[in-house]
């Protein structure tokens, strides 16, 4: 074990790291997202041309990635709340993490076509 650290590298630490990274990412995105939506106060053209870039494949892929970050943060946030408020939460924190990961994988699979449909259609017809 490296000296000078208390991190033990188990599930609890990695879920905490992922929760923090996704939280910060979502915060920065939200800042940008309020700015782009504010363009509706400039003109319909300004707004529509910015939104058009959201429909290109690189940004479309980023939307899928952002959805992944938000979904993980939301599901794991509920787990953190359960650990704090539910008497048996700490005991089942590990099982709850695997539940979070499973639900996350299922929802991301379900969101795959709806979110990426434009890109998939462009690439594969």
């Amino acid at each position: 074990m490296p000296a000078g650290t208390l991190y033990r590298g188990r599930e609890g630490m990695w879920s905490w790291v992922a929760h923090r990274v996704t939280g910060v990412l979502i915060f920065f995105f939200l800042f940008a997202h309020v700015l782009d939506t504010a363009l509706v106060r400039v003109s319909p053209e300004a707004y529509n041309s910015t939104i058009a870039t959201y429909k290109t494949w690189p940004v479309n892929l980023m939307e899928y990635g952002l959805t992944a970050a938000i979904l993980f943060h939301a599901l794991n946030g509920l787990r953190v709340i359960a650990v704090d408020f539910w008497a048996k939460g700490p005991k089942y924190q590990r099982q709850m993490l695997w539940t979070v990961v499973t639900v996350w994988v299922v929802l991301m699979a379900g969101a795959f076509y709806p979110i990426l449909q434009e890109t998939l259609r462009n690439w594969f017809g």
Partner: protein
Amino acid sequence: MAIETTGSVSGVELTNAAPTDPSAFLIEPPRARTKRTGRKSRTNFEMLAWLFMRLSGVVLVFLVLGHLIIQLVLDGGVTKISFAFVAGRWASPFWQGWDLLMLWLAMLHGANGMRTVINDYAERDTTRFWLKVLLVTATVFTVLLGTLVIFTFDPNIS
């Protein structure tokens, strides 16, 4: 306390004979008062902030996931979004209220979370101070701009 170069402090193994500061391994109990702690804290700010993270989190699950389903999943996903689509939704006070609540809760939740992150990583007092000034400025600006846009939206602009 005697300084040991090997052995263990609070059960943590010290691995080599290089000079090691044992206080690096000591974690103060959460409620310990230090020299810098005020005589008594007058408010429960940190406890309320902790509670707010959890309450806003529960509400945000519904607001944010609903938002993602409407904007990114239903009716062709992003392809349908345009000025006309926004105008259609904000014609209803219900969706205006939804977006307003989501904006405020997400920004306050996110800003408070960023405060925790700054406290964890920025060690110098001046660095912390200026990062928080930046955080508060960006947060106030974003919340006010978003609120203004929702309330002053004009479907017949230009």
